[in-house]
């Protein structure tokens, strides 16, 4: 049995008087890719943001790499766990060059050899060398998302949290980014959690997934069960039927 990398136990989140996540428990093995699907408002992104340390009003148990997480995280945590957001237009600093964006995590964590690491990171995400001294607005949406992935990977994390990483992209660019993520995950043995409302995308990248509705996990199933349509919960069955219908 491989080691558990991420574990959530009876996670609850309140925003003011709103109880948005109810008793969510799951665990992700090291090197596994786990999907969280559901409609907007189902709490999937909130769970991800709790793990990343971006949401504070949670209680329950969260563990990453065997260590129990508190509400304040240490610097090592923020190196080990990295996140890629949905909108590459919003997540990169508009007045910093790609070089500056990529050197920041290195400076924060005191990692040496910025020069070689940045060149290598750009190569890894298949960006041209010329992109290094450009600003985000000079790149296309797909290239920007590659920069966001490069920034997440440059500090050598072991966990990658992906929040709808391809839903702002064209299908042609989505294919390139999904291939890139699959390659990087394999090469670096990353543990991933992917949040998406697109079942086909989750099925492509993840081995297991949890379906959320109204802040609760209603079902956890494997990719094979998903493809075979072996879902027991009505909501999962609806989502699968809809996905097949739209595929035509």
């Amino acid at each position, binding site marked *: 049995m491989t080691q558990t990398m991420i574990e959530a136990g009876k996670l609850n989140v309140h925003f003011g008087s709103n109880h948005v996540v109810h008793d969510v428990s799951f665990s992700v093995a090291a090197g596994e890719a786990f999907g969280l699907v559901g*409609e*907007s*408002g189902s709490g999937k992104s909130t769970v991800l943001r709790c793990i990343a340390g971006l949401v504070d009003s949670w209680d329950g148990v969260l563990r990453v790499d065997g260590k129990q997480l508190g509400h304040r995280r240490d610097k090592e945590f923020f190196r080990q766990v990295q996140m890629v957001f949905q909108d590459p237009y919003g997540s990169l600093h508009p007045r910093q060059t790609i070089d500056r964006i990529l050197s920041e995590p290195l400076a924060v964590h005191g990692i040496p050899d910025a020069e070689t690491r940045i060149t290598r990171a750009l190569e890894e995400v298949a960006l041209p060398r010329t992109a290094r001294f450009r600003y985000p607005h000079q790149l296309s*949406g797909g290239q920007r998302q590659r920069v966001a992935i490069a920034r997440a990977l440059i500090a050598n994390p072991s966990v990658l949290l992906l929040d709808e990483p391809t839903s702002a992209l*064209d*299908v*042609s*660019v*989505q*294919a*390139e980014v*999904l*291939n890139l993520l*699959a390659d990087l995950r394999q090469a670096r043995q990353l543990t991933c959690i992917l949040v998406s*409302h*697109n*079942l*086909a*995308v989750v*099925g*492509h990248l993840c081995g297991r997934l949890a379906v959320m509705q109204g802040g609760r996990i209603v079902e956890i199933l494997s*990719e094979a069960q*998903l*493809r075979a349509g072996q879902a027991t919960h009505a909501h999962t069955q*609806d*989502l*699968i039927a*809809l*996905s*097949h*219908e*739209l*595929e*035509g």
Partner: protein
Amino acid sequence: MTQPLVEIQNLRVEFPSSSGGYNQAVRGVSMSLGREKLGIVGESGSGKSVTGRALMRLLPEAARVKADKLVFDGVNVLSASERTMRGLRGGRIGLILQDPKYSLNPVMTIGAQIAEAWRAHNKGGKKEALEAALNLLEQVRIRDPRRVLDSYPHEVSGGMGQRVMIAMMLAPNPDMLIADEPTSALDASVQAEILRLIDDLVSARGMGLMLISHDLPLVARFCDRVAVMYAGQVMETLPAQDLHHAEHAYTRGLLDCMPHLSEKRARLPVLNRDPKWLEPRS
């Protein structure tokens, strides 16, 4: 049906570029639309939205628009007066945009906004307009129209906001709807609901629909015909039910590179862009 509602022949749109020249956004697009559902698909930057905007003359002044023919129901859009255009925009052609959060006025109640749209194109008092608004909200299948009438846009969900936008566009009884990525900001399940609603309303009222989207399978399900655009040109136009047998390499490429639930593939095929697609088409 004798005459098509919209006729576009050899439409060209250029925008000034920073280097002083012009960038061609649309390069010789021709299409016609009757009272039917036409889908326009393509990647971002393919010129699909610009084509829709050109028809309503909503492009920035700096844009250069040329066409052999750009006609909406007998009105020449290229030479019509601003007054005539005002009657067309919102009056005879409704436009639904991607994100209701940005297209609704955040400081006006939904009822007041729909009533305003109604009064802009119909004669009648405030009370009549509010009644019309209530009726329109019922038509777009909002369960509790009275409550929504008094709500502000931030108090309703994305799907509800999009229904409100549709209600507003239906107020003047338009002949045609242009829906520019109407569901891209919504969940898959809400997406299907909104498109079904648009589909029903368009069919019931006998309107023409131009559905602009980057989502090929979605468009194929809801439209009669699909025009596939790449780099400012129409690559092919085909009946929606034949989309899965499309022959053009670009259309095939777009369909292939999507992950499918029904089959497992280790890698997704990547679109190989053929420089031939960029050559001017006859």
